[in-house]
C-alpha cells in the first residue's frame, strides 16, 4: 500500500464519517416535530381552519408521510447532490444563499488563517528558543491573553474603542465596498485581529511546548556541533520536526475557533457571512437553511480533519504508509 492507497483509504473513511454525521442529523430531524408543520397547524388554528388537516397537508407537501427509509434515502441523495432546498427566509435556494455568504466569510477567514499559520509556529519556536527569558514570558502572556479573552467580548470592546470613541472604523459592516479595497481592509482589520489573537495563542503554545522538546534533542546538539548557526538550526532542525505534532492539532484548533468564532464575530461586526446567515436562519426558523449551513460546516470539519491526517503522514518520514492505521 503506497501513498495513493493510503490517501484513498483515508478519503474513503472521511466519506463514511460524513455519512454518519448526515445520518445523525437526519435522525435528529426525523425524531422531532417539524417546526414548519407546527407552524402550519398554529396558523390554521388561528385562521379558524382545521389544524389536523393543515398538518396533513403540510406533511404531504414536505414528504413527511413517506416511509422513514424512503425519506432517509431522499435526504441522503439531496445532501450529496447539493439539492439543499429553498430558503424561505432568504427567498433563494439554500446553496445560493450559502455561496453568497461564503464570499464574505472568506474575506476575513483567509487572511486570518494565513496570519495564524504563519505567525503561530514562528512565535512558538521563538518563545522556545528564548525559553524562560522575558521574551518567552511576553509571548506566553500574549498567547494566554489571546485565548482566554472571549472573542465576542474582545470584539465588543474594540468596536467600542475604535468604532464608537475613535471612529476609525465603521460600526456597521458595509457590503458595498469592493473586496479588494483599502476600505474593506480597514473594516475587516479588527475582526481579523480579534480572530488572530484568539487562535494564534493556541498554535503558539503547542509549537512552543513541542519545539521545547526538540530544542534539547541530541540532534540539535549535533547541529550546533557541526557549526550550524542558531538561526539555521532553529529554522531547519526545530521548526521542521515541530510541524509534525503541530499538524495534528493545527487544523482541529483552527476549525474549532472558526466554527465558534465566525458566528460570534460576524454577529458582533455585522458581517453577512456564514455565521450570521446561520444565526439568522435559526432566529427565522428556516429549517432548510439551518440544515444547509450545519451541513456545510460539517463538511468543512470532515475535510479539515482529512487534510490534517494527510499532512501528518506527509510530514513525518518515520511513518511508512504500510504501518499507518487510519
Amino acid at each position, binding site marked *: 500500500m503506497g501513498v495513493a492507497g493510503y490517501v484513498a483509504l483515508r478519503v474513503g473513511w472521511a466519506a463514511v464519517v460524513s455519512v454518519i454525521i448526515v445520518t445523525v442529523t437526519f435522525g435528529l430531524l426525523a425524531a422531532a416535530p417539524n417546526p414548519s408543520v407546527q407552524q402550519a397547524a398554529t396558523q390554521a388554528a388561528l385562521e379558524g381552519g382545521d389544524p389536523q388537516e393543515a398538518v396533513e397537508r403540510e406533511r404531504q407537501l414536505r414528504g413527511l408521510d413517506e416511509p422513514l427509509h424512503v425519506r432517509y434515502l431522499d435526504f441522503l441523495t439531496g445532501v450529496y447532490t447539493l439539492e439543499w432546498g429553498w430558503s424561505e427566509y432568504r427567498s433563494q435556494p439554500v446553496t445560493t444563499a450559502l455561496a453568497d455568504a461564503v464570499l464574505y466569510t472568506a474575506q476575513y477567514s483567509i487572511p486570518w488563517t494565513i496570519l495564524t499559520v504563519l505567525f503561530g509556529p514562528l512565535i512558538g519556536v521563538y518563545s522556545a528558543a528564548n525559553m524562560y527569558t522575558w521574551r518567552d514570558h511576553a509571548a506566553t502572556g500574549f498567547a494566554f491573553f489571546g485565548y482566554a479573552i472571549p472573542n465576542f467580548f474582545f470584539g465588543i470592546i474594540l468596536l467600542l474603542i475604535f468604532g464608537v470613541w475613535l471612529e476609525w472604523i465603521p460600526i456597521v459592516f458595509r457590503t458595498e465596498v469592493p473586496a479588494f479595497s483599502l476600505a474593506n481592509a480597514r473594516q475587516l482589520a479588527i475582526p481579523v485581529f480579534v480572530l488572530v489573537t484568539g487562535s494564534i495563542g493556541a498554535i503558539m503554545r503547542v509549537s512552543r511546548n513541542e519545539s521545547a522538546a526538540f530544542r534539547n534533542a*541530541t*540532534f540539535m*546538539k*549535533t547541529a550546533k556541533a*557541526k557549526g550550524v548557526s542558531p538561526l539555521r538550526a532553529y529554522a531547519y532542525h526545530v521548526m521542521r520536526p515541530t510541524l509534525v505534532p503541530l499538524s495534528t492539532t493545527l487544523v482541529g484548533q483552527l476549525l474549532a475557533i472558526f466554527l465558534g468564532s465566525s458566528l460570534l464575530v460576524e454577529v458582533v461586526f455585522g458581517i453577512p457571512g456564514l455565521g450570521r446567515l446561520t444565526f439568522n436562519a435559526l432566529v427565522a426558523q428556516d429549517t432548510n437553511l439551518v440544515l444547509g449551513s450545519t451541513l456545510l460546516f460539517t463538511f468543512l470539519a470532515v475535510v479539515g480533519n482529512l487534510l490534517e491526517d494527510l499532512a501528518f503522514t506527509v510530514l513525518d518520514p518515520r511513518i511508512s504508509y504500510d504501518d499507518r492505521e487510519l
Partner: protein
Amino acid sequence: MTDNGSGATADGSGATADGSGATADGSGATTDDPLLAVEGLRTTFETEAGDLVAVDGIDFTVERGETVCLVGESGSGKTVAVESLTGLIDQPPGRIEGSVRFRGAELTALPPKALRRHRGASIAYVFQNPQDALNHCYTVGWQLIEAIQVHEDVSDAAARARAIDLLDTVGVPDPAGRIDEYPHQFSGGEKQRVMIAMALVTEPDLLVADEPTTALDVTTQAGILQLLDDLKAEYGLGVLFVTHDLATVSQIADRVVVLYAGTVMERGPVVDVFERPAHPYTRALLACLPGRESDLDAVGGAERGGIAGSLPDPTAPPDGCRFAPRCAHAESACSTGDQPPEVAVGDGHRVSCIHYDPGDDPSALPDPTESAAEAERSSVESARQDVIGDE
C-alpha cells in the same frame, strides 16, 4: 592498539602531560602548543537549589594522533566538560570559566560566530545516543551535505559525492543507495557510523566522542572502536573519548583522565593507570568490574564489591578531596581544604591524593583491610561527629 603509531604517541604524551614537547602533524599550527589544552575548566549551572558545580576546575591536554579518555561514572561531569570546550552548553543557565586553548588559540574568549567556525571544522563531536543524534525529519544525505556546506562553498553534487565517499569510509554498506534514506531506516551501529562520517566531513583535528558506543551492542561496539582507531591513524586525529566503561578505556586510550564529582582524581598513560592505579577511587572502580579479577593482579588488595555511599551533592561539594566521604583510606586531613594538588607518581602519571609524595610508587597506598586503616576510619568518623557536634 593495532596501529604502530600509538605506542610512540603514548610515550610522547606522557611527556606532554607536563607541558613539554608535542607530536605535531605539520598542519600549519605552532608546533609547541598542544592540539588542545584545557586549564582550570569550571562549569556551573544556576539551579533553584543554588549553583550546581558540574565541572570543578579540571586540566588536560590532547595531542594530535593520540586518544585521551575522560573516564567517570554518571555525575562525574565528563560530558559537561567536553561540551564546555566549544560552548555547546547553553549560557545561561550554564557558566563556563577557565581556559580552553586549541592549537594555542584561546576558545573561551572567542565570540559565538568565531567559535562556531571551529565547531565542525576543526573540532568535531560524536554523541552517545545515535537514536536521537540524527534529525528524524531529514535524510542522512541531507544532514551530511548540510555539515559540508556549512563550512565550505561546494556544489550540491560535489557535496553529495563526498558524503557517499565518507559513508563508505566509515563502513556503511551500499552508501550510494542508502544516502537518501531516513535515519530510522539505519540500525544503531550504522547511525553511529553516519555520525562519525558527519564528524569527518571537514577533516577536523580533534574528534570528541562522548560515550559513542554505550548504546550499542558489544559486537557493534567493537566495530566502532576499531573504526575510531583506524581513523585516528589515517587522519592524524586527536581523539577525546568520554566513557564510563573502563574496559573500553583500556582498549582505546593512550592516556586516561579519571574524573569524580567534577574533579580529576588521577591521570596518566593507560598502562600505568591500569596496572598501577594510585588513587583509591581508581582502585575501587577497577575492583568493581565484574568477572575480570583474572585480567589484572594490581587490584588484588581491594575487596570485590561496590563503593559505599553516593556522589556528593554537586550544589554543596564537600571540603577536601571530593572522594573522601566514600574513601576507605580517608583520614581527617582528607576532609579539609580543597581537592589535594596533583602529585607525580610516574612518568606523566599523577594523582590527587594526600597519601602520596612526589615520586612515590603508586603501590605505596596503605591497605585498608589492615587494622591501621580501621583506626583511620574511626578517626574520620569521630572527626565528623566532632564537626556535627560543633554545629
